[in-house]
């Protein structure tokens, strides 16, 4: 099956700093999503982005499908951005079975 790897595993930022999270995947995909898991365990859907670039406020994401990676950019980070960021991908084909990476734990300090 498809392998999904995320880096870095942990990241500590000062409030206001920018960051880039990376997701590598091992196969062609028809679904790639970024999630933020908040301290209560809820998975918040950030982006559906199997290719291209999207922006939503301070967050943006880019997926280069031909090179099998995706990047999540967080600008002007806030303490509420803290939590775990997961990338998840589904291999191209008649499936929507998402394989999750191990996540990046982000801590934004005031």
């Amino acid at each position, binding site marked *: 099956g498809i392998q999904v790897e995320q880096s870095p595993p942990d990241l500590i930022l000062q409030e206001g700093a920018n960051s880039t999270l990376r997701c590598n995947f091992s196969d062609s995909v028809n*679904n790639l*999503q970024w999630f933020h898991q908040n301290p209560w365990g809820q*998975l918040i859907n950030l982006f559906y982005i199997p290719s291209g670039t999207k922006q939503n406020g301070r967050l943006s994401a880019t997926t280069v499908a031909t090179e099998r990676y995706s990047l999540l950019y967080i600008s002007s980070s806030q303490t509420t951005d803290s939590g775990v960021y997961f990338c998840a991908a589904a291999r191209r084909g*008649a499936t*929507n079975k*998402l394989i*999750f*990476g191990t996540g990046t734990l982000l801590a934004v300090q005031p």
Partner: protein
Amino acid sequence: EPEVTQTPSHQVTQMGQEVILRCVPISNHLYFYWYRQILGQKVEFLVSFYNNEISEKSEIFDDQFSVERPDGSNFTLKIRSTKLEDSAMYFCASSVMVAGNTIYFGEGSWLTVV
């Protein structure tokens, strides 16, 4: 934005008991899923469901587990004879199509087996 809703938010059960976790997928969605996340680990796929049938399942989804769409709105996960290692957050999810579109996740149900 439409939501996937799950109940209960948290359940504590004795080892060996049966548990039913309930989900209401987004109303026009046709594909339904259960995922689980053991504390501190990544989220894992359990099963996908379409047209009243299981369309795909993982190795985790053994005979202890079953899914059902008992009516037009609910989607349930039943865990028979729970074990300590079943303690996890269980996420329900839904999507419009089988591939190439956003999967929306519910807020999760924490299951603690004691």
